[in-house]
């Protein structure tokens, strides 16, 4: 029988994340959103507690968690602040290509010193001319003897201004499209690596996002991940692993919106009684809790599938797509439950809508997720 009960160990991990989220993150969420501010002191604390490099095996200094346990933690963090959570889990995304595509020597060389102290890393795939269409990549990697010369520009890169390490995808020949894409590990200190200024964003404002320009950056061939042309597959396999925690992140935002709405409905009186006693609000809350439950269970199922050693492309795409759509809808309904107050920045729910929106876009836009879902679905009928 499938079992939805958490083990005592999982309960302890969730308790740790919940305590951190509610005592360290939540009190600063509104201020970091409004200012905006990148609360590096909170990210340092997350690192100190082992909440940062969740997917890196313990032998390299990470927490060594499977997908399910990562999801439990990410949901709790996102309940307090989606933006901070994005910055906290960005290392998982950035380091996954090294875990999947690096040699034993590269893993030891890059991961062990990186994870031993507080460091941030960024995953640099998206370019100004194409996010979903990664095959049209323009950042060039030109081979010159025992090294490559990288030139081009990446955009919307999480934590880029603060990171010390980047996993960069570039093409050795644009005419090869997907088959030219190659992955590299590039330190921030390399000459010609130029992160841009922080973007002004709608949500996730405690996180930091910028462009990175590569001006003839020399990268040793020994810092290439996998063979030339294997980068696109590596990026896709990376996203197969990291998509499910985005479902968890969206679920955390949705749960927060539901809790705010339900709590408010019991206090707010109209027509002589709490609005929770009006059927119109009851129907809203009933629909919201269904969406939250479904988002969580789809996320858990995708994580469980991946932890059983399966690819889980279909399951993780369903989880990410459904949970992010659910988060936007539930946050929207939470604002509606609050009425005019919900639209005011003084109340917490409008931030949830702005934060939920990004979960439909990043780590594979939901349109791409639906393309993937349809492809995986139809494969079973062909």
């Amino acid at each position, binding site marked *: 029988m499938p079992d939805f009960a958490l083990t*005592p160990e999982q309960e302890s*991990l969730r308790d*740790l994340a919940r305590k951190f989220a509610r005592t360290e993150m939540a009190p600063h969420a509104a201020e970091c959103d409004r200012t905006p501010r990148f609360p590096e002191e909170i990210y340092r604390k997350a690192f100190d507690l082992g909440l940062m490099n969740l997917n890196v095996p313990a032998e390299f200094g990470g*927490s060594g968690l499977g997908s399910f346990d990562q999801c439990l933690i990410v949901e709790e963090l996102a309940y307090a602040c989606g933006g901070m959570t994005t910055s906290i889990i960005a290392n998982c995304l950035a380091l996954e290509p090294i875990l999947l595509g690096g040699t034993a020597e590269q893993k030891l060389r890059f991961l062990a010193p990186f994870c031993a102290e507080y460091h941030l890393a960024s995953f640099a795939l998206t370019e100004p001319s194409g996010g979903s269409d990664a095959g049209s990549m323009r950042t060039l990697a030109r081979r010159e003897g025992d090294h490559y010369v990288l030139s081009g520009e990446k955009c919307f890169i999480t934590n880029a201004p603060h990171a010390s390490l980047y996993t960069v995808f570039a093409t050795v020949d644009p005419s090869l499209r997907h088959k030219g894409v190659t992955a590299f590990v590039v330190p921030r200190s390399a000459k010609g690596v130029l992160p841009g200024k922080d973007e002004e964003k709608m949500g996730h404002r405690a996180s930091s996002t910028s462009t990175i320009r590569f001006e003839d950056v020399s990268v040793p061939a020994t810092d290439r991940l996998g063979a030339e042309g294997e980068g696109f597959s590596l990026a896709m396999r990376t996203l197969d692993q990291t998509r499910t925690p985005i479902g968890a992140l969206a679920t955390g935002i949705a749960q927060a919106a539901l809790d705010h709405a339900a709590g408010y409905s019991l206090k707010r009186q109209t027509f002589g009684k709490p609005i929770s006693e009006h059927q119109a609000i009851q129907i809203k809350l009933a629909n919201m809790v269904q969406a939250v439950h479904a988002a969580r269970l789809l996320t858990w199922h995708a994580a469980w599938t991946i932890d059983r050693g399966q690819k889980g492309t279909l399951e993780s795409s369903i989880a990410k797509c459904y949970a992010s759509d659910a988060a936007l809808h539930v946050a929207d309904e939470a604002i509606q439950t609050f009425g005019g107050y919900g639209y005011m920045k003084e109340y917490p729910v409008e931030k949830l809508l702005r934060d939920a929106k990004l979960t439909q876009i990043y780590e594979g836009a939901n349109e791409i997720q639906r393309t993937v879902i349809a492809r995986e679905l139809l494969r079973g009928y062909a």
Partner: protein
Amino acid sequence: MEIVVCVKPVPDAETRLRIGADGSTMDIEAVKFVLAGYDESAVEQALLLKEANPGSKVHVISAGPAPRTEEVLRASLALGCDLATWVELPAGVSPDPIATARAVVRAVSAAPHDLVLCGKQAGDDEAGLFAGALAELLSIPDFSAVLDLRWDPGTSRLRFQRSVEGGLEKWEAPTPCVVALQQAWNDPRTAKLPAILKSRKLPITKVAFEAPPASSGTTRSTKFELPPPRTGAKLIEFKTPEEAAQKLVKILKEEAKVFP
């Protein structure tokens, strides 16, 4: 130094408590039990002493039923305690503080101890009797409401403060003794994720519970009831702070008759 810490699993402060169907017990269905308050301070004090005195060991002991007791012991191991002993009580047995002291005294005696720490009182019944009872059974002195405990290896004496009405007392004491800690003065640490994972695999020594004789004079709870719902709150409607203050003064004078 060898330090023993006694802890008790208590309901999480965020848990909604319900009274059991029999009216004389708490309904523990869906109640989350944690290491809390005073006990967290006791564990933190033990770990601070261990860090200040290299070579020290911290042994945590708890009496209670599964699974909650194992969980607080594992939480203590995750925080940095070295050894754990569980005096396993059958489900449904909830001894009073003196019976609990009797239940653990054998385990405490068997563990080497220069110092026995515990919370000043439990986070649930807040009886504050356990430390005194345990000290009596061990025939050693005990001190309550203690903070900032330090060990002077030169004189082999403990130095600490006690919080008393309106101030602090400074004390010195010989070892071994039982010390009951004040709550949250030392900002208890949070266990790190790798330590939590590791704590799941550490051994816990189980000790069978020997029921105290019926004549040991234990108390029992006869009835729980919820406090009556609060009434009488009055909201003052106002447009300016001056108006609010005037209305409040009027109510305090004429209705509450707080002053003439």
